[in-house]
């Protein structure tokens, strides 16, 4: 049966890939056609090849690299500090109900505040330099990571802990074989939400105050009516965010795999 259905499977898979690709290809063709026939003014939509050329030129003279590196550095610094604090605080409120009772409501109110609304206050406190950007990204990451960590630890099945206790596992083994695999998926879930929030806040902060960075490029493109520049920066930002998200997923699989081995 399996041998017989294999070509059929292949055809079905091909059909699936085709429908999956259909709309992006259609959109690209539509985009190209609209601009080629000049059906829309060039200020509204630039031809796709122009975006490609702009990206290549900026890559060649290092402008794109400089902006991407500046943005990446900010995201990584903010993400690392926000995630570290979030995991630590989430663990504390998960293991101490008393702390949760006292700090929970305040954290709950804190979490309601949109991350972008912290920007003006952060600027007042830290000035309009690098520190405030990293701090606001960190705040944006902190909230979902705390929630994810707390849920992860609360969600460890009691049975696992009982089995670990019955087997008298040493602490290291207990952490690696029981705690880590039980909590990692939800913690990584929180980290992924945090990362996407971090990118969002980064673009926000760079749009209004930065001398370098992908958001700054977008702003320059907007004020100079260079749509190719805006689109290049948007594409690179999306691509970097996507790549980092995939890396977190990898990390989760790697962590769970090692724990199971």
């Amino acid at each position: 049966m399996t041998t017989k259905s294999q070509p059929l499977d292949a055809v079905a898979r091909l059909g699936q890939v085709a429908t999956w690709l259909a709309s992006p290809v259609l959109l690209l063709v539509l985009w190209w056609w609209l601009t080629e026939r000049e059906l829309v003014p060039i200020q509204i939509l630039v031809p796709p090849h122009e975006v490609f050329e702009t990206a290549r030129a900026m890559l060649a003279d290092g402008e794109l690299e400089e902006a991407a590196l500046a943005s990446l550095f900010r995201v990584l610094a903010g993400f690392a500090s926000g995630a570290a604090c979030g995991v630590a605080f989430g663990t504390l409120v998960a293991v101490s109900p008393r702390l949760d009772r006292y700090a929970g409501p305040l954290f709950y109110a804190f979490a309601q505040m949109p991350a972008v609304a912290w920007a003006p206050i952060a600027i007042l406190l830290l000035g309009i330099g690098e520190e405030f950007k990293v701090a606001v990204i960190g705040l944006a990451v902190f909230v979902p990571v705390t929630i994810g960590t707390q849920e992860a630890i609360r969600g460890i099945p009691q049975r696992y802990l009982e089995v670990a206790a019955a087997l008298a596992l040493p602490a290291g083994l207990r952490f690696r074989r029981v705690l880590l695999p039980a909590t990692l998926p939800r913690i990584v879930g929180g980290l992924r939400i945090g990362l996407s929030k971090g990118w969002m806040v980064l673009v926000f902060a760079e749009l209004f105050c930065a001398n370098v960075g992908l958001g700054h490029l977008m702003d320059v493109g907007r004020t100079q009516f260079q749509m190719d520049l805006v689109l290049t920066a948007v594409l690179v930002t999306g691509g970097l965010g996507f790549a980092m998200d995939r890396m977190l997923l990898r990390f989760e699989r790697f962590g769970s795999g090692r724990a199971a081995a």
Partner: protein
Amino acid sequence: MSVGVVGGPHHFKWRSYLWLVASTIVLTIVIAEISVSQVSLAVPGRGLIGEIAAATLDTLRRLLAGLFVGITAGSLLGTAMGAVPILDRLLSPPIHALRQVPLFGWIPLIGLWAGLGEPSKVTFVALAVAYVMVLSAHEAIRSISPRLTEVSRALGLDPLTKLRVLVIPSVTPALLAGVRIALAAGWSAVVGAEILMAAAPGLGALIWGAREVGRPEIVVAGSVVVGVLGALSNAGLRSFEQRVLHRYYR
């Protein structure tokens, strides 16, 4: 359905209420102290409270308009994608690709296309809301149990009855949860849009303008208003959600 917030309302004890009230009072006193010390700087005529109230109304109006458009458009698109497989396969790839663009990356694009006026701001809020609603409506439709669908077919229910007894009860929890996430996204979008596309009244613009002319008391007071309104709207929606779920889903 997990509540998902540390110390969510179901964990509240009277002692934490006391704590919350005490910390709010302290915070308010601090803000009032700062404000009073700078009151001579306040705009003559309207006063600080009046200014903040007017800005709040502007922001709320913008948020509601964006929520209305975004929830309607997003739910319709998500429902269509959930109900028609071919639409799903055609639209999912571009939608997931667009989701990779950080939300505020749309602001320069919308700015190029439509300027920085009122329609652009509402469009941006609607976009942020629609993102969320497409996904949750899609999920909601797919959460309808296929067994119940078969039963309703076997019973030969007419479309209206089917809608009433099968579809609406099945999709409501996921949709309500989606609306709550969309509300948070909408708050973030409306404040961000007001900061980035200034030149309009609103809380974000007020806070931002106050920062630029060096009036920290307005920055702090405006931010507190944003936080409190966000928390209140979320809590209101949550209690509505729980009432609905409690009444119809036991």
